[in-house]
């Protein structure tokens, strides 16, 4: 692209500056126009264009000696009347579209100053079209006409401008480069002028290329070479008629016009005789040879521009043979490998190639030969009644417009034969080196501003439907009428006699199968063996009795029992936000799941989560979906009476962590807050009493309920950083989940109560309020009397809040110490060396853990590193 100023460009430069400057001022002023004012201007311009259409067609023909005056009149009318009809009610100013479902408003702005290149083949219709499109979109336009058509193009621009001006358009919004030998050079200067915003190039390949390499955004067009498939299912007579109308339109100057026909052999004789009957000439082999020599420029294998838009008899004469004066089209059969035939190229004149094919596949392949001989992205056509044939053709062909059972040239223009946008500018996509395959129109001349409103998510609270919560509630099993239950439990539950208790509570007619092979946390092989057993027994329900691991296993077994086609790898995909996640769960589980927890910790009986150990990768896979929620939960504290002290403590600290994390979660709601706070209070009240008197059913009952309440809280608000760290750490060092949670508790409490280095980006969490939430916990737990520092409750200052949070941290510390619960990694007996070695990989898995997504602060990896380091040494009271 030539852009620098040359010596003899001085005068030109001034002219270019003047044109661009006028256009720029006009474009600035145009931004103030309302839709009504714009529409009035467009209307006045359309009336002027309709009136001037015959005159302008005449002028174009006189100047270019191309095409047919009558067809040029038609084209001019299409460019104004049809375009007007299509755009008159369209909004192009301000708010133009409201996308209700997406909650987005679209606002239109002009693109600014447009430099428009216009072609020799359609010198007046293109100017009419572009002027109207620019007025409708409040853009300024500078026309750079084709040198051979500059007078008629500029006359058109002048008529359009004057009509617009009298209707109130801004002064200078349409301008044109005067005809002169330096027109091309002036166009080049404008192409790189800082006041030009967009180049809208319709014309020869060279100019379009120059536009694209100017560095400005450009709407270009590609070259055409339209293949048309005439399938045997088509209405032959109507098809031939359409093709003749199309190919003779303006003597073939329209670039979407038919170039080579591909005809099914079965109907080809009929087709050819119909063409002959309607006044076309079928050339002999020698005539084709002669035509090839003059229609195609031998040097660059493109069409001879001197013959563009000439009539058939004239072209035949130039080739050296005579045809009847009114001959409509010269038909040339392309034989042999058509890819190498001279006449396969675009011929914007009434010369039409054709080829006969014996099969559908060959038909479409020959169309592709034509398509890829210089016309990709542009236009193609098909005549067929068979929809499958049309579909196959459509899938194969590379064209922005696939015109079906209609003339491709007038069809491509849009409006007359179909509802395509009326245009004189055919986008060809990347096939033609363009940015769009559109029939370029007003929508391409707007900058659309999008105003997305913040997403508001509905808050849904979901949990297990039936929850029996009193001691002794195991007896409700009888009422559930289970005929053939599959009992999933741990070996321990069998040993402790719990399974027998359950079997006793089932109706005598029930046939139960027991699966008790789970040791530790479930993995996939364990799921598979349970699945094999349940399938064999064809059970109607699953009873899960045990801790979190057993309940999780039962949830996964039920899912795969009901939906054996599911793939674990497709439902255990990590996600950023569950509302946008890619995994899809079924929602039609029929096997009833009854969850009976025997520990007071995970709350799995009321959560939509299940965790599966991946033994190979030492990570835990989390499955999350409401479909995993059990149907019934039986919270019978009698089943926890014999629980060993260590499990009682670890699971209680898991539940305590649940309540603390759910409280500050970015998904917390009033519903989950209430549950979390009460769970916290019950645990702090009941655990020490249970540790003193493990058989106290009253306190076991409180602890058992607390775990379920906290489970309901995390089932809806999820957990946070503490769980992310505990999951990673627990998997590597094989530490029970609750215990792993407790060693990070003091670290994450402190971290989450401080203003985070980075906030969590979540639409439903507009303000960081974690510190306020901890203050609420402080208040709910009634810690004021224990606080040695004096606090002014009415002063909600940051300092006050921090004092109260310190009080909460001290309370949690004292509580854990009173229960002898380890609070750091060192207290677990893990060596500093072993721990340090694992930290880099722990950081990675922690960062990717889904629990982190709902943490109120967004820790960076370096923060996570610090948190792991802080969690090692023995804790001291905060």
């Amino acid at each position, binding site marked *: 692209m030539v852009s620098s100023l040359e010596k003899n460009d001085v005068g030109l430069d001034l002219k270019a500056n003047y044109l661009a400057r006028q256009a720029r*001022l*006009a474009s600035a*002023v145009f931004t103030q126009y309302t839709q009504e004012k714009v529409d009035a201007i467009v209307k006045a311009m359309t009336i002027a264009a309709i009136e001037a259409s015959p005159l302008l067609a005449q002028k174009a023909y006189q100047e270019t000696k191309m095409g047919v005056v009558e067809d040029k009149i038609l084209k001019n009318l299409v460019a104004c009347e049809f375009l007007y009809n299509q755009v008159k009610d369209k909004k192009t100013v301000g708010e133009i579209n409201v996308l209700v479902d997406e909650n987005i408003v679209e606002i239109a702005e002009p693109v600014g100053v447009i430099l428009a290149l216009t072609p020799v083949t359609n010198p007046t219709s293109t100017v009419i079209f572009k002027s109207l499109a620019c007025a409708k979109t409040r853009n300024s336009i500078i026309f750079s006409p084709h040198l051979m058509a500059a007078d008629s193009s500029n006359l058109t621009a002048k008529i359009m401008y004057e009509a617009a001006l009298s209707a109130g358009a801004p*002064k200078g919004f349409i301008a044109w480069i005067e005809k002169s030998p330096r027109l091309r050079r002036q166009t080049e200067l404008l192409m790189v002028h*800082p006041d030009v915003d967009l180049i809208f190039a319709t014309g020869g390949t060279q100019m379009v290329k120059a536009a694209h390499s100017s560095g400005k955004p450009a709407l270009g067009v590609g070259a055409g070479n339209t293949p048309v498939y005439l399938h045997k299912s088509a209405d032959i007579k109507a098809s031939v008629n359409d093709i003749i109308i199309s190919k003779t339109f303006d003597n073939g100057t329209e670039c979407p016009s038919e170039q080579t026909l591909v005809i099914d052999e079965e109907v080809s004789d009929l087709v050819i005789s119909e063409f002959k009957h309607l006044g076309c000439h079928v050339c002999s082999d020698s005539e084709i040879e002669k035509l090839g020599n003059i229609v195609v420029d031998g040097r660059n294998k493109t069409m001879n521009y001197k013959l563009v838009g000439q009539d058939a008899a004239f072209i035949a004469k130039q080739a050296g043979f005579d045809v009847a004066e009114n001959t409509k089209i010269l038909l040339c059969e392309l034989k042999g490998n058509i890819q190498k035939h001279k006449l396969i190229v675009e011929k914007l004149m009434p010369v039409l190639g054709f080829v006969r094919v014996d099969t559908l596949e060959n038909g479409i392949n020959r169309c592709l030969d034509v398509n890829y001989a210089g016309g990709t992205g542009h236009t193609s056509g098909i005549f067929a009644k068979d929809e499958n044939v049309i579909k196959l053709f459509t899938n194969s062909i590379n064209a922005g417009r696939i015109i079906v059972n209609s003339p491709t040239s007038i069809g491509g223009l849009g409006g007359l034969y179909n509802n395509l946008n009326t245009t004189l500018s055919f986008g060809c996509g990347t096939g033609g080196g363009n940015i769009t395959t559109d029939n370029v129109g007003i929508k391409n001349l707007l900058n659309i501003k999008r105003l997305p409103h913040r997403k508001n998510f509905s808050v849904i609270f979901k949990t297990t439907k039936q929850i029996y919560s009193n001691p002794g509630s195991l007896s409700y099993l009888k009422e559930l009428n289970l005929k053939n239950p599959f009992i999933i439990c741990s070996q321990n539950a069998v040993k402790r006699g719990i399974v027998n208790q359950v079997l006793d509570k089932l109706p005598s007619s029930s046939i139960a199968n027991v699966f008790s092979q789970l040791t530790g946390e479930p993995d996939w092989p364990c799921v598979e063996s349970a699945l094999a057993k349940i399938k064999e027994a064809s059970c109607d329900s699953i009873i899960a009795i045990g801790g979190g691991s057993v309940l999780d296993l039962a949830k996964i077994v039920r899912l795969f029992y009901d939906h054996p086609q599911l793939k674990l790898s497709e439902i255990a995909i990590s996600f950023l936000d569950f509302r946008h996640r890619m995994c899809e769960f079924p929602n039609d589980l029929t096997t009833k799941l009854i969850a009976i927890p025997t520990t007071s910790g995970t709350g799995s009986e009321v959560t939509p989560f299940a965790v599966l150990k991946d033994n190979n990768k030492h990570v835990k896979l989390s499955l999350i979906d409401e479909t995993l929620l059990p149907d019934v939960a039986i919270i019978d504290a009698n089943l926890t009476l014999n629980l060993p002290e260590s499990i009682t403590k670890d699971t209680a600290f898991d539940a305590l962590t649940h309540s603390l994390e759910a409280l500050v979660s970015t998904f917390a709601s009033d519903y989950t807050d209430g549950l979390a706070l009460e769970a916290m209070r019950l645990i702090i009240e009941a655990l020490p009493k249970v540790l003193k008197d493990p058989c106290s059913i009253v306190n076991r009952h409180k602890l058992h309920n607390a775990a379920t309440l906290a489970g309901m809280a995390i089932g809806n608000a999820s957990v946070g950083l503490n769980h992310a760290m505990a999951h990673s750490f627990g998997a590597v060092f094989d530490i029970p989940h609750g215990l792993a949670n407790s060693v990070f508790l003091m670290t994450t409490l402190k971290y989450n109560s401080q203003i985070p280095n980075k906030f969590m980006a979540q639409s439903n969490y507009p303000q960081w309020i974690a510190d306020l939430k901890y203050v609420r916990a402080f208040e709910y737990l009634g810690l004021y009397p224990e606080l040695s520092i004096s606090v002014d409750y009415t002063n909600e200052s940051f300092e006050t809040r921090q004092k109260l949070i310190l009080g909460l941290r001290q309370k949690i510390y004292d509580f854990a110490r009173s229960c002898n619960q380890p609070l750091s990694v060192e207290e677990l007996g893990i060596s500093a060396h072993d721990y340090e070695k694992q930290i880099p990989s722990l950081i990675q898995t922690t960062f990717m853990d889904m629990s982190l997504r709902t943490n109120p602060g967004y820790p960076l990896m370096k923060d996570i590193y610090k948190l792991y380091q802080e969690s090692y040494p023995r804790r001291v009271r905060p």
Partner: protein
Amino acid sequence: MKATHEQIFIIPDVLDKAISEVDSCLVKNNSKLSIDFKNCQFISVDGLEWLEEILVRADSKNINVTFCNLKPEIYKVFKIARVDVILKAIGGQTDFAPFC
């Protein structure tokens, strides 16, 4: 010593022509000229050209011209029009290379 006189002109609702008072102010050699756009709802190409002209003239006479009470719709027109002297009068840079 030169006296400092500041004159204020209020632009009418549609600015599309020269305002003779402003011309006479430029002739009188006041050192400050303030143009108030509070009533201005629309500015035409002629209006922009006139503004440019008086700003160039004021500049040559060392008269400091300031604009006040510009509505965003009008301010936007100035930004898009990229007329050097107008950009200067609104306190902006005149180098208008596009940025993103």
